[in-house]
């Protein structure tokens, strides 16, 4: 399949899959795995290795991306809430998540937290787990506590399936995700080092595919496609290098990413889709695998608004990321009503002002159709960055 198509054709083929809110990859997987269980995972990150070790399919649940009308969810969640929470619930109430046997909600914000409660009372047939991610990054107790939390999650899955996950199975799941993460990291390295070879739109499509495809299959896709990127015939342009910040949970409309790029930006780093690329480097594969996952969370998590930093202030991590990406300017691109992003914005932009780094900020919603004003803002931003640098 893959050989006969060009890189661009493949991206468009995958785009159709990720745009389909009926979860075609889940249906396909279920048809091949009789009795197989699917775990739906609300962003930003949840431990995918655990369902994988149980032979289940972990799938990212990122709302409906503006592709369903919010009719039923209105009576359950009020209007001053981010679109991802509302449209995710809408999918549930329309019976479109019935292929999910389990739902996981991580402790990223009050909305996701309460959505887990709404879910458990409205969908008693699905197993719902709320995951407490440790916030005390300086306490050694955080690692052991989170290890217990992972054990609890695994036990919940075991209970559902009547099987146990062996240590060896978890280790091999960790390996599968390590391998996949390293390939995803290569996509980001290409974006960073030779951004003209791979747009963020294209990288996004590939990463989004990772959230809904069995990891082995996605790894194969990346192994096939990465060499194709290197041979693309594309020339560098006089674009500015920007980083996107604030799009860690609800995903921006893809058109918005395209508009930013078309307006003259190389998006060399971002916080989109951390789902499969949450850790820096490999999770250890020797010793107790749950402990290894817990330690990685404390020591190897990537910078994110939904993770507290202990003694190292958030702004330091943020600036480090900017320096590493040789970024000329930052675009704060946050979902409307998203408290973690909007509250962080002030602290982060203060730091940018202190450091003399240009920035631009706007908000998006899933159901956003017109991008012209954003295009103009980005174009002006690009000109000012080019002019001042």
């Amino acid at each position: 399949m893959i050989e006969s198509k060009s890189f661009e054709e493949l991206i468009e083929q995958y785009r159709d899959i990720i745009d389909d809110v009926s979860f075609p990859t889940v249906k396909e997987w279920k048809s091949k795995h009789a009795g197989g269980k699917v775990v739906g995972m609300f962003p930003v990150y949840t431990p995918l290795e655990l369902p994988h070790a149980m032979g289940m399919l972990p799938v990212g649940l990122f709302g409906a991306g503006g592709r369903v009308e919010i009719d039923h969810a209105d009576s359950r969640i009020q209007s001053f809430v981010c679109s991802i929470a509302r449209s995710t619930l809408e999918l549930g109430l329309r019976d479109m998540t019935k292929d999910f046997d389990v739902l996981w909600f991580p402790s990223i914000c009050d909305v996701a937290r309460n959505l887990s409660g709404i879910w458990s009372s409205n969908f008693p047939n699905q197993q719902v787990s709320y995951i407490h991610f440790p916030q005390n990054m300086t306490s050694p107790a955080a690692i052991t506590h989170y290890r217990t939390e992972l054990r609890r999650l695994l036990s919940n899955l075991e209970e559902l399936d009547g099987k146990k996950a062996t240590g060896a199975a978890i280790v091999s799941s960790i390996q599968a995700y390590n391998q996949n993460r390293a390939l995803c990291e290569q996509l980001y390295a290409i974006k960073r080092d030779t951004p003209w070879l791979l747009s963020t739109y294209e990288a996004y499509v590939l990463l989004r595919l990772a959230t809904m495809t069995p990891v082995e299959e996605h790894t194969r896709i990346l192994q096939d496609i990465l060499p194709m990127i290197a041979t693309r015939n594309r020339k560098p342009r006089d674009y500015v290098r920007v980083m996107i910040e604030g799009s860690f949970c609800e995903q921006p409309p893809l058109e918005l990413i395209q508009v930013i790029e078309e307006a003259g930006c190389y998006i060399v780093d971002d916080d989109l889709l951390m789902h499969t690329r949450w850790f820096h480097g490999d999770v250890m594969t020797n010793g107790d695998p749950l402990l290894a996952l817990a330690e990685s969370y404390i020591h190897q998590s990537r910078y994110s608004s939904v993770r507290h930093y202990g003694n190292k202030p958030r702004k330091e991590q943020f600036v480090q990321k900017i320096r590493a990406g040789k970024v000329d300017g930052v675009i704060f691109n946050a979902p409307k009503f998203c408290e973690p992003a909007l509250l962080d914005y002030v602290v982060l932009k203060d730091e940018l002002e202190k450091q003399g780094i240009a920035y631009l900020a706007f908000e998006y919603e899933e159901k956003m159709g017109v991008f012209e004003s954003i295009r103009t803002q980005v174009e002006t931003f690009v000109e000012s960055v080019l002019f001042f640098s």
Partner: protein
Amino acid sequence: MSDDKFKYQGAGREYQKQLLTAWYERLQSAKDDGRKIAYLFVPGNIAEFLRVFDFELVFPEVNALQCGVRKTSGDLILKAEDVGYSPDVCGYVKNDIGMMLAGNISPSGTQLPKPDLLLCTYCGCTTFIKWFEALAHYYDVPLVMLDVPYLRSDAIEEDDRQYIVLQLKELAVICEKITGKKYDHDKLVHITRHSEEAEDLWVKILHSAKHKPSPFDAYFEAVFFMAPIYVLRGLPECTDYYRRALLEVEERIEHGIGPIPNEKFRVVMEGPPPWPYFRAFWELLKKWDVCAVASSYSKVGGFWDHGFRHDPTRPLESIADYCLTCYTNLNLPMRTDLLHSYAEEYSADAIVIHSVKSCRSFSVGQADMREQFIRKWDIPTLLIESDLADPRYFQVAQLRNRIDAFFESLEHKRLVGV
């Protein structure tokens, strides 16, 4: 009825005011007196533990609340929006940051001291973390996190409890460094004993609302009566306060009086009040002779009425349990069940949800709760929206219409005997 029949009326409100004024004055002079300052949140506050090191405590939410009551929150919120805060984020955070930017003058006019310790007691609300990260940014002081796991099931997990206890032990070392005072377990035992006593008395006051008519409004009055148990807990004057407040309530029972002279409807209230329009909101309900007989908001900082007490025989564990079970840390199904059980225990006619737009910690899920109260338990439920700090969201005419329509229909049902 001659006035000398009433010896204690007004004690709850007046004495509370005196104690809070004295506290703010103490805060003003704390630095000069060489005392160290800890900032922390009301929910799950570990006052007892910090008092071992003689910290003076500042509660940013209490400041925000008082600004709301004094109607200064609107301007302060705009100040925070001027430096980049979105109109859509928590009004308390903006109120507090606006106040800090304006010189950190407390709502009662005294100077608030800078923190020596920013202790983020993360009890449920994730905005707490962002709020204190912002304070750490502005004050340039380190932030210490007390990570309290949200209740994932309806019971306390031993592992969660031990996690908090271990963190407290680590915190003791930090506090010793800041204050130069040693952790003293006997002192903690002594302080928790005070807390336990005050909590016993507070629960009696809360339970008094089971009487008909209720001698006490468990929302509009409780917000005053609950202040000492949150901010002064562990001090002898706190216990003394509840002794007097209970006398006031007992006297009301004895004479069959209460805040609503002709109590007609008994309701359970959910959600924080609209502080800048607190009186106006009360009036809208008083018009219908509504008494709040139970509320969740009076449990934000601690949940005692189903049995929890700080325990001098196991102080650290009980502090952990206290953090785990304050209302903000209960999961949504627990909150729903709790309100339902209140409606039964306190013979309420309805549930009123005041949904606060900028506080998603409370508000997300309230519409779903409402559905459940109506569908599952057939409890009439009113959901109204405004904000707890931001006066821009309080639309009095709209609220009045909703409230009138709701109680009119309750009244009608009562008349026709449905």
